[in-house]
C-alpha cells in the first residue's frame, strides 16, 4: 500500500453529500430519466439560469442515450456564450469529443479545464492521462496517473467524481504494479460513500472486480448500479460482460438491451460484435465493428474487432492495413494483436494465435494479457515449457488471474506424469495410472487414427499428444484455465486433453468414444486448416463416434425430440448459436445430436464425399452459406427446410409417440407449473392411446419397480416398439432384460441387453451382466467382446479385467489377453510377481518374445524361486535360441 490509511478515512466525513442537496434534473439523470433530465436542464439553459454544473449534467444526459452531437452542441454553445461558469462544461465537452474520436479537440478542452481550474479538473487530468496512454505515450501517461497518488494523499480528491478519477488512475497504474488495484478499490469505495445515489462509482468498481475475475463481487455492484439507474446502457454492458464471464447464454440479451438504450455505445457494439465473431458470425460482427467505427473511427477496440474479422476472413490486405493504422495511432498497444490472437484461438487457430500473441508481447512487453494469451496457446500446441514461461510472466503482471494461476499450478503437477509413445501418439499419463490406462488408450487411439486418416485422406503431423487427466478439475484447468468445464475432452489440434477413464464425479461416461470424438476433431481441423465452424466439427465427431463402435456417441432421445416438437432447436443456418449461447439447459447437448444428424442428412442427400469437400471449403475461408452453396449448390434456406423434413421423416414414429406428452408437459401458461401425472393417470393414458410412449414407459417401469413383472412386460414391449432406439437409463430394453432373466429366458434377456448396449455408450452394469449371461450360455468370445466395451467406460475393474483375460485366453485371443494383463499389472496388484508372470505368458503366446522376456524377468526379479516363471524363462531362452 502506498497510501496512508489515516488520510483515506479522514476524507470520508467531509465529502458525503446529502441526497437532498441534489437538483431535480440531476436526480432524474441519476435514476435514468434522461429525457426528463434533458428537458429540465435545457429549460434552465433557455431561461439563462443554467450554471456550469447544469450544463455538465445536460451533456451527460445526452451522452447516456448516445446523442453525442447534441451533447457537443450544448457544450460548445455554453462555452461560446461566455458564461462565467463556462469552464465547468469543458471536461464534459471533452468527453463527448473523445467518445466520437475528436481527440485533438478533446485534449484541448481537458487542458483548458485544468488550466482554468474547473471544479472537475481532476477528471480532466485523468482524461489527459488516458489520452496519453492511448496514443502510446506510456511514460507521460504513467507520470500523469502517478500524480493522482499525491492528489489523494494530499486530500484533494473531495467529490465522488474526484475519487472515481483517482480510482481509474490507479486502475491504469495497476497494469504495472498490481498492488495498486487494491488502492483503486479503496478509491471507488470512498466514491460510493461520497455519493450513494450515483451509480457510476459502483459501476466502475464492479467493472474493476470483473476485470480481476471476481464475478460475484462484480455482480452485486453492477446490480446495485442497475437498481439506481436501470436505463444506463453502460451498466447493461457490464452485466453482459459478467454474464459472459459466467458462461450464461443471457449475455447477448444484456448487450442488446444496452444497445437499445444507447445504440451508439461503442464498447457495447464491440462487445456484441466480439460475441458474434466467437460464434462464427463474421458478417454481423463486421457490421457491429462498422457501426462502432462510424461513431468513433479511432476506437482501437473497434478497430481490433474489425481486424479480427478481416483476419478470420482471410482478407490479409485489409488486416495488414488496419494493423498498421492502429500501430501508428498507438505504437505501444497490443490490444489489436491480443484480440486477433484470442479470436484465432476461439476458432481453433492455435498456432496462429501463438504467432500473433508473440508479436503482441514484442509491441508491449508489459502486457500481461499478451503474455497470457501467448502462454495459453503455446500450451495448446504442446509447447509446454515455453507456455509455462509465458504464463509465469503473465501472472507476475496479473496475479489476480485465476486462469494463469490454476494453469501454472497444474503444470507443477506434470512431474507426476510420464509419456507413453505409440505409433502416432504421445500419451501423457499420470505415472501411477499409466500401466492401467495405456493399453486401452493406445488401442482406441491407433484404431481411430487408422480409420479416420484413411477415410478423410489426411494424416495430421505426428505425434498427436494426448493428455489424460485423472481429476476432472485438472482437465478443466488444462482446457479453459478454470475448474467446472462440462466437457470430457478437448482437441487443440496437435494436443488433445481428455478425462481419464472412470474419473470421479462425472457419472458414467465413455472415455473411448470421447477420445474418438477428439481425434475426429483433429482430422476435421487438419482438413479445414482449423477453419471449420464449431457446429460442423462437433457434429462430425459425433457422427464418427456413431460409426466407430455400436452405441458410441450421443443419440436422439425423447428429450431431443420433445425439444424438436416444441420448436426449441435452431435451424441448420443458426445451429452454431446452440454451441455458444444455448437457450435452455439441455440445448448444448441437443445441438451436438442435431449437428450429427445434419451430417447423416448430408451423407444421405449428397453422399459422404461431400463432407470432406465442405471441410476443404471452410479451409478456403468459406462460411456456412458459401461452403454449402459451393459444394452442394443448395442455399442454407433449402438446407434448413430439407433437414427439417429429414428429421420428421426419420423419427416419424417416435415423434408421434411423444406428441401426447407435448400437451401434458407444457407448463401452465400463467403459473408455469407442470402437471404431475399419477400412476393411475399414466395408466389411463396408456390404455387410451397405444402410441403414447411416455405413458407406456413410465407405467412399465413403475410396475417393474414394484416387482409386478408380468404386468410391466406389455407396457415395456409397447414402449420398445414405439421407440426401439431409445437406450437411456429408463430404457424399456433394460426392464425387459430383467423380466426375461428372472423367468430364466436367458437368450431373450441377452437379446434385450444387446439391443440396449448397441444403442448407448453407457450402461456399464448392463454390459457386465450381459457378459456374464453370454459366458453362462457358452459364448466366451462374445462375453470377452462385451467386456471390451466395458473397458471403454471404466478400467478400475480388476475382476472384469481378470475375466476378460481368462475369456480371451479361452478363445486364443492373445492380443486381448495381453491388453487385459497389462492393465491388471497397472492396477498395482499385491502379487506383482504373479501378474508379471501371467503377462509374460500372454506375450509369449502372442509371439512377442521380447516383451515376454522382459515381463518374466520382472516376475523373477521379485520372486527368483517362482517355479512357473523359471520354466517360462528357460522356454523363452530355448525359443530365442531356436530362432
Amino acid at each position: 500500500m502506498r497510501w496512508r490509511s489515516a488520510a483515506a478515512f479522514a476524507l470520508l466525513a467531509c465529502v458525503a453529500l446529502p441526497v437532498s442537496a441534489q437538483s431535480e434534473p440531476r436526480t432524474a439523470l441519476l435514476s435514468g430519466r434522461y429525457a426528463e433530465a434533458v428537458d429540465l436542464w435545457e429549460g434552465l439553459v433557455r431561461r439563462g439560469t443554467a450554471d456550469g454544473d447544469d450544463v455538465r449534467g445536460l451533456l451527460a444526459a445526452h451522452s447516456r442515450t448516445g446523442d453525442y452531437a447534441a451533447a457537443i452542441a450544448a457544450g460548445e454553445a455554453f462555452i461560446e456564450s461566455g458564461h462565467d461558469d463556462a469552464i465547468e462544461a469543458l471536461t464534459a465537452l471533452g468527453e463527448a469529443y473523445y467518445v466520437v474520436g475528436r481527440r485533438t479537440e478533446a485534449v484541448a478542452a481537458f487542458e483548458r479545464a485544468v488550466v482554468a481550474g474547473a471544479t472537475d479538473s481532476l477528471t480532466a487530468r485523468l482524461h489527459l492521462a488516458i489520452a496519453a496512454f492511448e496514443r502510446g505515450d506510456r511514460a507521460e501517461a504513467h507520470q500523469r496517473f502517478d500524480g493522482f497518488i499525491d492528489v489523494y494523499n494530499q486530500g484533494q480528491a473531495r467529490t465522488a467524481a474526484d475519487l472515481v478519477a483517482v480510482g481509474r488512475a490507479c486502475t491504469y497504474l495497476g497494469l504495472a504494479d498490481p498492488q495498486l488495484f487494491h488502492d483503486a478499490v479503496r478509491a471507488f469505495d470512498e466514491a460510493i460513500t461520497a455519493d450513494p445515489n450515483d451509480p457510476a462509482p459502483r459501476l466502475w468498481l464492479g467493472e474493476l472486480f470483473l476485470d480481476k475475475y471476481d464475478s460475484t463481487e462484480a455482480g452485486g455492484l453492477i446490480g446495485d448500479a442497475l437498481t439506481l439507474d436501470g436505463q444506463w446502457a453502460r451498466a447493461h454492458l457490464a452485466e453482459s460482460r459478467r454474464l459472459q464471464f459466467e458462461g450464461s447464454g443471457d449475455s447477448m440479451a444484456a448487450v442488446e438491451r444496452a444497445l437499445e438504450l444507447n445504440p451508439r455505445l461503442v464498447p457495447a457494439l464491440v462487445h456484441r460484435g466480439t460475441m458474434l465473431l466467437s460464434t462464427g458470425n463474421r458478417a454481423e460482427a463486421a457490421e457491429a465493428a462498422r457501426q462502432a467505427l462510424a461513431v468513433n473511427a479511432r476506437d482501437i477496440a473497434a478497430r481490433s474487432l474489425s481486424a479480427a474479422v478481416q483476419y478470420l476472413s482471410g482478407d490479409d490486405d485489409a488486416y495488414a492495413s488496419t494493423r498498421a493504422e492502429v500501430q501508428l495511432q498507438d505504437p505501444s498497444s497490443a490490444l489489436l494483436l491480443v484480440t486477433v490472437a484470442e479470436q484465432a484461438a476461439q476458432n481453433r487457430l492455435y498456432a496462429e494465435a501463438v504467432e500473433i500473441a508473440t508479436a503482441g508481447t514484442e509491441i508491449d512487453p508489459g502486457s500481461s494479457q499478451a503474455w497470457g494469451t501467448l502462454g495459453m496457446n503455446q500450451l495448446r500446441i504442446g509447447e509446454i515449457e515455453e507456455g509455462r514461461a509465458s504464463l509465469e510472466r503473465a501472472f507476475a503482471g496479473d496475479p489476480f488471474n485465476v486462469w494463469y494461476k490454476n494453469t501454472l499450478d497444474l503444470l507443477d503437477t506434470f512431474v507426476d506424469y510420464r509419456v507413453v509413445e505409440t505409433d502416432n501418439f504421445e500419451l501423457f499419463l499420470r505415472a501411477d495410472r499409466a500401466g492401467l490406462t495405456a493399453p486401452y488408450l493406445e488401442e482406441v487411439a491407433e484404431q481411430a487414427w487408422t480409420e479416420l486418416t484413411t477415410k478423410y485422406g489426411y494424416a495430421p503431423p505426428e505425434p498427436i499428444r494426448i493428455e489424460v487427466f485423472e481429476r476432472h478439475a485438472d482437465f478443466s484447468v488444462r482446457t479453459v484455465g478454470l475448474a467446472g468445464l462440462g466437457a470430457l475432452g478437448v482437441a487443440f489440434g496437435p494436443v488433445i486433453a481428455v478425462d481419464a477413464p472412470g474419473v470421479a464425479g462425472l457419472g458414467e461416461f465413455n472415455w473411448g468414444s470421447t477420445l474418438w470424438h477428439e481425434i475426429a476433431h483433429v482430422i476435421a481441423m487438419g482438413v479445414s486448416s482449423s477453419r471449420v465452424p464449431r457446429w460442423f466439427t462437433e457434429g462430425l465427431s459425433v457422427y464418427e463416434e456413431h460409426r466407430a463402435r455400436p452405441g458410441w456417441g450421443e443419440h436422439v432421445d425423447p428429450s431431443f425430440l420433445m425439444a424438436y416438437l416444441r420448436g426449441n432447436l435452431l435451424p441448420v443456418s443458426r445451429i452454431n448459436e446452440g454451441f455458444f449461447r444455448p437457450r435452455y439447459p439441455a440445448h448444448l447437448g441437443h445441438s451436438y445430436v442435431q449437428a450429427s444428424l445434419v451430417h447423416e442428412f448430408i451423407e444421405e442427400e449428397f453422399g459422404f464425399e461431400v463432407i470432406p469437400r465442405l471441410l476443404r471449403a471452410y479451409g478456403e475461408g468459406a462460411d456456412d452459406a458459401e461452403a454449402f452453396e459451393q459444394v452442394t449448390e443448395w442455399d442454407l434456406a433449402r438446407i434448413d427446410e430439407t433437414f427439417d423434413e429429414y428429421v420428421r421423416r426419420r423419427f416419424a414414429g417416435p415423434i408421434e409417440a411423444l406428441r401426447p406428452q407435448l400437451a401434458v408437459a407444457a407448463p401452465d401458461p400463467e403459473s408455469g407449473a407442470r402437471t404431475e401425472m399419477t400412476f393411475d393417470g399414466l395408466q389411463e393414458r396408456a390404455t387410451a392411446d397405444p402410441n403414447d410412449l411416455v405413458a407406456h414407459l413410465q407405467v412399465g417401469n413403475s410396475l417393474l419397480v414394484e416387482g409386478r413383472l408380468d404386468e410391466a412386460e406389455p407396457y415395456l414391449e409397447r414402449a420398445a416398439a414405439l421407440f426401439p432406439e431409445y437406450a437411456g437409463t429408463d430404457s424399456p430394453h433394460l426392464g425387459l432384460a430383467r423380466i426375461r432373466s428372472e423367468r430364466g429366458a436367458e437368450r431373450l434377456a441377452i437379446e434385450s441387453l444387446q439391443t440396449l448396449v448397441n444403442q448407448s455408450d453407457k450402461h456399464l452394469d448392463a454390459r457386465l451382466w450381459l457378459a456374464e449371461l453370454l459366458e453362462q450360455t457358452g459364448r466366451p468370445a462374445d462375453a470377452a467382446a462385451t467386456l471390451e466395451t466395458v473397458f471403454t467406460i471404466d478400467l478400475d475393474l480388476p475382476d472384469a479385467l481378470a475375466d476378460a483375460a481368462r475369456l480371451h485366453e479361452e478363445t486364443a485371443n492373445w492380443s486381448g489377453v495381453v491388453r487385459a494383463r497389462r492393465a491388471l499389472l497397472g492396477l498395482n496388484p499385491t502379487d506383482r510377481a504373479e501378474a508379471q508372470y501371467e503377462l509374460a505368458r500372454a506375450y509369449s503366446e502372442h509371439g512377442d518374445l521380447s516383451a515376454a522376456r522382459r515381463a518374466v524377468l520382472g516376475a523373477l526379479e521379485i520372486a527368483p524361486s517362482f517355479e512357473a516363471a523359471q520354466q517360462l524363462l528357460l522356454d523363452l531362452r530355448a525359443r530365442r535360441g531356436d530362432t
Partner: protein
Amino acid sequence: MMRAALLAGLILSVPSPAYATEAWLVVICGVGGDAEHRATFDGRAQTLIAAATQDQHIDTSRVIYLAERPTDVEGATARSDAAGITAAFDRIGRDAASDATVAVVLFGHGSGQEPPGTFNIPGPDVGPATFETELAKLGERRVVFVNTSSASAGFLTLARPGRVVITATGNLREREEPRFGGYFVDAFAEGSADLDKDSVVSVREAFVYASQEVDRFYENEGRLQPEHAMLDDDGDAEPSRWPLDPADDGSNADGLLASRMTLGGLAAAAAVDSAGDPELARLITVRAAAQDRLDVLRGSKDDLDEDAYFDQLEELLLEIAELDQQIRARESLP
C-alpha cells in the same frame, strides 16, 4: 512339501541368526467389548494359530493363546489379563531355547487418549512399558511383536535391534478399528502373501500384503484412510510404512529383518535334510551364492543401464532356474 523343503534348504544356507531353532507364538486377545468383536478377535487368533501350527510348523505346545473368556474359546490357554500375560512371558523366558524366535500378536481395542497409548485387557489396560518389562524376560531371543489394535502406534517404542515391531496405526489419533489385523492374518492363512513365490510367507510379506489390502479397501470405498500400519525392525526408532523404501542415503532400511523371519522361524527350516546328500548340499550352497549375487545386482539397478541390467539379470536368473531344477530333481530322488 517338496517346495517347502527346497525353501528351507535355502534358508539354512543363509548364515543369518534370524532363523532360530525353535519358535514360540503368543496370541493375546484383549477385551472385545461385545460379542461381535470377541468373535472377530478370537476368530483371527484361531486362524493365525492354525496357519502357524499347520503351515509354519510351530509346535502346538509352544503356542500360548490368551483370551478374554478362555473357557468360551477353543484352544485358549489362559485369560488375557495382566497375570496371564506375565505368566506367558515367564514361561517362555524359562522354557524357550536361548536362540528361539518369539512372535507376539495382539488382537483387540487400543486407546490413544493418553500417550503412549494402551491395549485393553481384562483389568487395567496395559501399555508399551508393560510389554517392555515382559519382553525383557526373553533376553536376546528374536522377537516379532505385532499390535493390531487401534491407536497402537505407541507400541513402536518397543523397537530394538533384533526385534520386529509392527503396529496397525501410525499415530495415536488413528482410533478407528483397523482392518490391518484381518489382512495380516489372511496373509498367513491364505498364502496369497507369498509375494516372492518361495513358499513361505515372511513377516515382511505379511506386513506388505496387509498394508496394500488396507490401501485398496479404502480406495475402493472412496474413503479417507484412517489407519497406516508401521514397521520398525532396525531398532532406529524411525518406523516405516509400506512400501518400506529406505531413505536416499540408505538409512532406515526397515524390512530386512522382517523379510528373514516367519512366524514359524526354524520350524519350517527344520524340515530340511540335506546332510545325507552331499550333492544336494553343494547345489544349495551354489544356489545361495547365486542368490547373494542376485541381491547385489538388484541393489545396483539404479546405477546400471536398463538393458545391461536386464541382460545380467537374465543370465543370473537362468542360472538360478537351472540350479533350482537340479535341486528339485535331487530332492525327488527316493
